[in-house]
């Protein structure tokens, strides 16, 4: 375990020894302590980037650390959009960072799909006419 824990504190005292917990983040195994959140356990290992912006791919980490900003959302045991800053780690938890999503508004991804019901009806009619 790395030394990013604040073990000795002049006022708050020595850090309590808590139970060790093992989890994975993007396939790699890490350990943390009971009462750690996903965000604190990962930061203790020097990991700041928790997701990529779904559209631009720009990296993000914790911003508010108390559940307000939703910047730290990750996928936990296949449940998406879980806030790393509020979620306590559990033994064998499988955590995946937030990834870039395909953008339906990008013309590259549009393909030939109709965008309105009107377009859909017209394309269906065209298909019918073409089959005649």
């Amino acid at each position, binding site marked *: 375990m790395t030394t990013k824990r604040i073990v000795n504190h002049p006022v708050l005292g020595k850090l309590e020894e808590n139970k060790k917990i093992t989890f994975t983040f993007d396939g790699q195994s890490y350990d943390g302590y009971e009462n750690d959140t996903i965000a604190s356990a990962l930061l203790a290992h020097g990991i700041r980037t928790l997701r990529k*912006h779904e559209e*631009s791919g*720009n990296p993000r980490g914790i911003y508010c650390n108390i559940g*307000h900003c939703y910047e730290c959302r990750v996928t936990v045991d296949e449940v998406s*959009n879980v806030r790393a800053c509020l979620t306590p780690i559990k033994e064998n938890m499988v955590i995946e960072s937030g990834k870039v999503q395909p953008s339906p508004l990008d013309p590259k991804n549009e393909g030939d799909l109709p965008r309105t019901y009107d377009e859909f009806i017209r394309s269906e009619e065209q298909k019918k006419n073409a089959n005649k």
Partner: protein
Amino acid sequence: MQHLIICRCEEVSLKDLEETAKKFNCTARELKLRTRAGMGFCGGRTCRPAVDKVLTDLTKENPTDAIPLKVSPPVRPISLSDLGGKASDD
């Protein structure tokens, strides 16, 4: 110089807001709807004061005692399965 991002969730920059305000000469509400500033995942909790400030400056609308841009439920994103009854009343 990098862009000054105002709304982190939707990556809306000051420049986006300024250009949209100029192009459409719009009200604060319209400007928000056009740019999606404050309408992302966090529901505007992070950028609300900043967006309010920029919109007031750009649209010259005076702030009122009512909350400037409407708050609508849900104030936290919620999955459809939770909304659709997974969350029971006991």
